[in-house]
């Protein structure tokens, strides 16, 4: 599904990712944990195609395509989805309009017919109910006046509607109370399938109690320092990140 080889990325003149290697197979859930500033969001943005990052080395293959050559919207239609750490507000554009535009843009790129309005509304209602969201939210401008938790739920709603092949969740758990966390986890678990993969970026182990990862990576100082099973997350929770900096670079 996704294969990252020796990825080096410089941001504002500083090397933030210093040779990332990561391979995700179809149907697998990978988690990346790491301290603040270790480059987690940078990795997710680079995969999604945000501007402003200098890719100085390495390559990324997604579904057999050279991901780094693709425009962001083409990555999306190839099946890549990013749940943003800080979702953006779009005043005056209702969430429903936004979702409809997105779904139909994706379908068009894939050579499919636009969804009938009735089909769309049915799908939206179904997903909304699953996530326990207030239908009123859909009428408001995208993320405008949403609480932190509502914004994160909105990201999960979009993921559920757009049905990606690979979903990257960048700290979707931060700022959520325990109920919201469970709903978000349920949203993800409902979508798990043998053909869909997840890359779950988190600062805390908490979310991984509800979404069982297949593989856990520790990202620190721009490199994956350790890879293991779910037990690695628990170990991190106990010991903190200090032991994982490697190369005797520990602070």
């Amino acid at each position, binding site marked *: 599904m996704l294969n990252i080889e020796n990825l080096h990325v410089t941001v504002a003149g500083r090397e933030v990712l210093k040779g990332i290697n990561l391979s995700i197979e179809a149907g697998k859930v990978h988690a990346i944990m790491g301290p603040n500033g270790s480059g987690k969001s940078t990795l997710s943005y680079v995969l*999604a*195609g*945000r*501007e402003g990052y200098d890719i100085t080395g390495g390559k990324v293959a997604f579904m057999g395509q050279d991901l780094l050559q693709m*425009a*962001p*919207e083409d*990555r*999306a*239609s190839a099946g890549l*989805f*990013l749940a*943003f750490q800080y*979702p*953006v*507000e*779009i*005043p*005056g*554009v209702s969430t429903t*309009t*936004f979702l409809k*535009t*997105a779904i139909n*843009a*994706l379908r068009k*790129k894939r050579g499919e017919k636009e969804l009938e309005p009735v089909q769309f509304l049915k799908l939206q209602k179904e997903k909304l109910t699953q996530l326990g969201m207030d239908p009123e939210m859909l009428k408001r*401008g995208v993320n405008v006046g949403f609480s932190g938790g509502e914004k994160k739920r909105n990201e999960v709603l*979009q993921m559920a509607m*757009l049905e990606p092949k690979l979903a990257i969740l960048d700290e979707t758990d931060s700022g959520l109370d325990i109920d919201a966390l469970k709903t978000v986890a349920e949203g993800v678990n409902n979508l798990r399938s043998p053909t869909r993969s997840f890359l779950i970026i988190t600062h805390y182990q908490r979310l991984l109690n509800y979404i069982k990862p297949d593989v856990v990576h520790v990202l620190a100082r721009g490199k994956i320092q350790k890879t293991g099973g779910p037990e690695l997350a628990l170990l991190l929770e106990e010991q903190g990140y200090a032991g994982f900096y490697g190369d005797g670079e520990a602070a």
Partner: protein
Amino acid sequence: MPISNETLQTVQSLGQKYAAGFITDIESDLAPKGLNEEIVRFISAKKGEPQWLLDLRLQAYRHWLTMPEPQWSKVSFPTIDYQDAFYYAAPKSASKLKNLNELDPKLLETYKKLGIPLREQEMLAGVAVDAVFDSVSIVTTFRENLRKAGVIFCPISEAVQKYPELVKKYMGSVVPYTDNKHACLNIAVFTDGTFVYIPEGVRCPMELSTYFRINEAKTGQFERTLIVAEKGSYVSYLEGCSAPQRDENQMHAAVVELIAMDDAEIKYSTIQNWYPGDEEGKGGIYNFVTKRGICKGARSKISWTQVETGSAITWKYPSCILQGNDSIGEFYSVALTNHYQQADTGTKMIHLGKNTKSRIISKGISAGKSNNTYRGLVRVSSKAKQARNYTQCDSLLIGKTCGAHTVPYIENKNPTAIIEHEASTSKIGADQLFYCRQRGISQEEAVTLIVNGFCREVLQHLPMEFAVEAQKLVAISLEGSVG
């Protein structure tokens, strides 16, 4: 985060070109070139007008000669050579027209291409159209249906003949010829326009509209619209317009007067799509328009909604005189400028009666090297107890080479008045665009989505039939918006 080059380039290639820029090849009956008393008499004679109107025209013309050009707006252009234009142009075939079947097929085709089919069965249900081509009204549809409801909807030149008392009573009563130079020229040389009269207690059963088309080269268009809504009546009226793509600047100086009696409501919408000039600022219409309504009666309401995407220069301030107690004035505006376009637009809310309310929502979008100014006056007279105004002016900038300006004037002579003003300036953020693109929405579609979101509060005040068209126009007008 600043907007990237890529964004600017995409915005530049947005949409299609100005779609209404074609020329209809048709033989015209022209007045001799230039402007003088003979021309004023020529126009009046063409229309077979009564003496009082000719006298009014001549009086206005003589006054016009003494008036200075308005200097206070933030627009610049070379001095206008008033002698280098034609003040009357009419398709030859239109003069002897009796019904639609006799209309030159070229004219029918023109309107069809503009999305305004004139045959009633092809039209939007519920919308009546007066089609003005250069200096004359060529067709007015659904007149019979309207007449049954008691509504008069006809070319103003015809109203002068058929309803002289009404026209004489109201024409110039809201915008006198002494008001400003452009309005003064208008009354001297106006050639046509629309007259609407809604009798007491009647709710006009259809949307009324006028479509103004300039076709002939080197001509100006000077039309007048007069709408009178008697007690307790209601009317929604919409005007649209367009012109061919030409290298020269053409002048359009219209006057619109609205009169609302007790409990009457007039909703006036404009979708202004005059040719804006090319990417280098060559050509385009000078749109110098005076629009004013008076809420004469108690509890009357006048609501202006405008979407201004065209014209090289837009100079217009649709205003409300709130004379009746408890009357309401509203102004909802989207002004979009691109390339070298200049817009200086806004409103005047003149509070005279007690408990009068006004609401101003202005959305300015500037791109390219354009300049976009909101200019608004809120005046509360000493007698206007408990007057209220709310003003909100938002500007959206695309790129770094455009300008947005907000010039609010407040003159308050009554301490019980409450006047609120809010203003904001924002940019289309790279983050917003990336968010959309991550969801699969292309850059062009994202810009359109964001801009339409920005305008939503205004666009939702348009009659439903036209809201979608306005959204599309906003998207198309962003074409080539690079600095």
